[in-house]
C-alpha cells in the first residue's frame, strides 16, 4: 500500500523534557519508507525518548509526529500500534507469566466488542502465532512461560510478538544488546528478510558493526536532536559524529 522511497515516519520539532532536562530537543527527522534506518548516538542522547514519543508511550511537549502524512502526535500508544507501527523495548520486554504462544496472542486485534469475547486460541490465530514462532526459531517452546526462556529466546519472542500485530514499520530498541554473536547474526538475517518483504525498520543500536552492515540510512543523535544523517559510510567519516562520540 505504500511505495518504497516515499516519506514514512516524520517528526517536526519534537521536544520532550524531564525535570528541566531536554531529552529530545526540537528534533526534525524523516525516515523513508522501505529502508532499514538506524538511529545512533552516545548514551543519553535521547534515542529511547524519541522512540517513546513516536510510539505514544510518552506525550511530547512540543512538535508533531506524522506517519504517511497523517498526524499521529500524542495519540494513544495502542492507536499508533493500530496505525502500523510496532516496537520492541530496550532490555527486551515480554509477558513473563504467559506462554510464548500467549505472548503473541495478546497482539491479536479483536476488531469488535463481540469478537473480543471470542476465544483467544482461535485456530487461525494460533496457527499464525506458531508460524511466527517457527520463523524466529522457537516454535518448540510455544507452551513454555516466557520467564523460563533464556534472554536470547526472549528477544526472539519479543520480535515475534511485534510481528504478530503485523506492523508496516518496526522500531527496534537495541536488538543486538546483550545477545551472543550467533544470535545477532540471526536477528540481522530476520530483519533483512522482513525488510525485503516491505517492512520499514528504525533501529536504535550501539553495536556499530551491526549498524554498518544492516542499515541503509543512519541518523546520528546528540543531545536530543539529529546532528548528521546519510549512508553508513558517509556518517562514519563525519567529523561532527566523531566529536559527539568522543564527548567533544
Amino acid at each position, binding site marked *: 500500500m505504500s511505495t518504497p522511497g516515499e516519506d514514512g515516519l516524520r517528526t517536526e520539532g519534537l521536544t520532550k523534557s524531564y525535570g528541566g532536562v531536554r531529552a529530545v530537543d526540537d528534533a526534525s527527522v524523516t525516515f523513508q519508507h522501505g529502508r532499514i534506518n538506524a538511529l545512533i548516538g552516545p548514551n543519553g542522547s535521547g534515542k529511547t525518548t524519541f522512540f517513546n514519543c513516536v510510539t505514544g508511550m510518552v506525550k511530547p511537549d512540543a512538535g508533531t509526529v506524522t506517519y504517511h502524512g497523517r498526524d499521529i502526535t500524542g495519540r494513544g500508544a*495502542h492507536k499508533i500500534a493500530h496505525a502500523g507501527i*510496532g516496537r520492541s523495548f530496550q532490555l527486551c520486554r515480554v509477558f513473563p507469566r*504467559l506462554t510464548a504462544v500467549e505472548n503473541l*496472542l495478546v497482539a491479536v*486485534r479483536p476488531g469488535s466488542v463481540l469478537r*473480543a*469475547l471470542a476465544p483467544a486460541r482461535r485456530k487461525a490465530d494460533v496457527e499464525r502465532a506458531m508460524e511466527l514462532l517457527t520463523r524466529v526459531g522457537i516454535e518448540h517452546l510455544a507452551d513454555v512461560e516466557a520467564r523460563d526462556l533464556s534472554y536470547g529466546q526472549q528477544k526472539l519472542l519479543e520480535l515475534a*510478538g511485534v510481528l504478530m500485530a503485523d506492523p508496516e514499520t518496526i522500531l527496534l530498541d537495541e536488538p543486538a544488546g546483550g545477545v551472543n554473536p*550467533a544470535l545477532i547474526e540471526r536477528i540481522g538475517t530476520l530483519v533483512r528478510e522482513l525488510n525485503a518483504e516491505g517492512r520499514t525498520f528504525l533501529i536504535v543500536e550501539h553495536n556499530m558493526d551491526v549498524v554498518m552492515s544492516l542499515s541503509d540510512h543512519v541518523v546520528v543523535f546528540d543531545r536530543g536532536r539529529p546532528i548528521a544523517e546519510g549512508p553508513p559510510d558517509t556518517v562514519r567519516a563525519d567529523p561532527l559524529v566523531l566529536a559527539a562520540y568522543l564527548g567533544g
Partner: protein
Amino acid sequence: MRSASEKVVKSVGLIVLVAFVVVFPGIASDPFVLSVGVVIISYAVLATAWNFVGGFTGYISLGHAAYSGLGGYATGLLILRAEVNPWVALLLGGVVVAVLAVPVGIAALRVRGASFVIVSIALVLVLLLVFQSWESVTGGSDGLRVPRPFGPEVLRPEQHQRFFYLHAALLAVMLLCWWAIDRSRFGMGLKGIREDEDKARSLGVPTVRYKLAAFVVSAFFTALGGGLYALWFGFLDPIFQFSILVGSNMVLMSLLGGVRSLFGPLVGAVVVGYATEFFKAQYGDTQMHLVAMGVLLAAVVLFLPDGIIPAVRGLVARLRPKQASIREVTQEELAEEVRR
C-alpha cells in the same frame, strides 16, 4: 501440560464441588452451621467478583467494600424508598453501581500502582463518612433495616437454605463469566496488561478501555454480592458495609487461593471464612482475629504470592518424575542455540 489425566481430575473435582454445594444445606442440620455456610459462600462471591479486576489486570483494589456496600444500600433503599420488588431492586442496584463505577474507574485507573491503591482506600473512607452523615436518606449510623424478600411463613433455616442456593447460583454465573473472559481475546489483553501494561499498549491493546471494562464488571458483581448479602442479613450499618476490612478480606482470599486461577478466590474464601468463624468461636470477641488476619496476609504476601492452587499444582508436577522440568528443556535449548 494439558494431559488427559488432568482433564479427568478437573472434571471429577468440579462434579464433587457442585454436588457438595447442592447437598450442603441438607446435611447441615444445625441452622448455625448453615448460616456460617451462607457467610462463607458470600465471601466466595465477593472474592470472585474482586478477582475480575485483581486477577486479570493486577490492579489490587483494597476498596471493593465500596461496591458491595453501595450494592447493599442501593438494594435496601430501592425497596424501602421506591417500593421496588426486592429482586428487581437487587439487579437494579447492581446496574446503578456499575454505572457509578465508570467515572470512578476512569479516575482511578489513570494512575498505577501506589496511587491506585490509595484511591481505592479513599473511596471506602469517603463513602463511610457520607453514609454516616447523610442520615435522612441512609439512616446514618443507626443503620438501615432491609425488609426480607420472603414472607414470614418462611422460617430461619429455610431462609438460610434459600439464600445459600441464591449465592451459589450467583457464584456459578460469575465463575462462568470469569472462565469465558479468561479464554477470550479480551482476557488475553487483560493478562497482557497485568504482566506489562506498556508492552501491551505497544502491541495495540486498548488498555484504558479494557481495564475499565474489567473494573465495571467487577463492580457490578461485587454490588450484586453486597445486595444479596443485605437481603439475607436484613440490616446495614455503614461502619461494617464501608469497612476496609471487608475489602482486604476479598484481597486476602483471592491472593491466598491464587488470583490467576478460576477457583482461587473460592478456595481462599473457604479457608479464610472457616478460619475466621473458628477464631470467633474459639477466642470470642477479642481483637486477636485481626492479628491472625494480619499475620496470614503477611505470610501469603511474603511466602505464597501466587496462592495455594498454583503451589499445589507445582507440587504435583514435581511429584511426577517422568516429565522433564521446563528449566531443563530451556537449558538444552540454550546449548543447542550456542551450537548453531
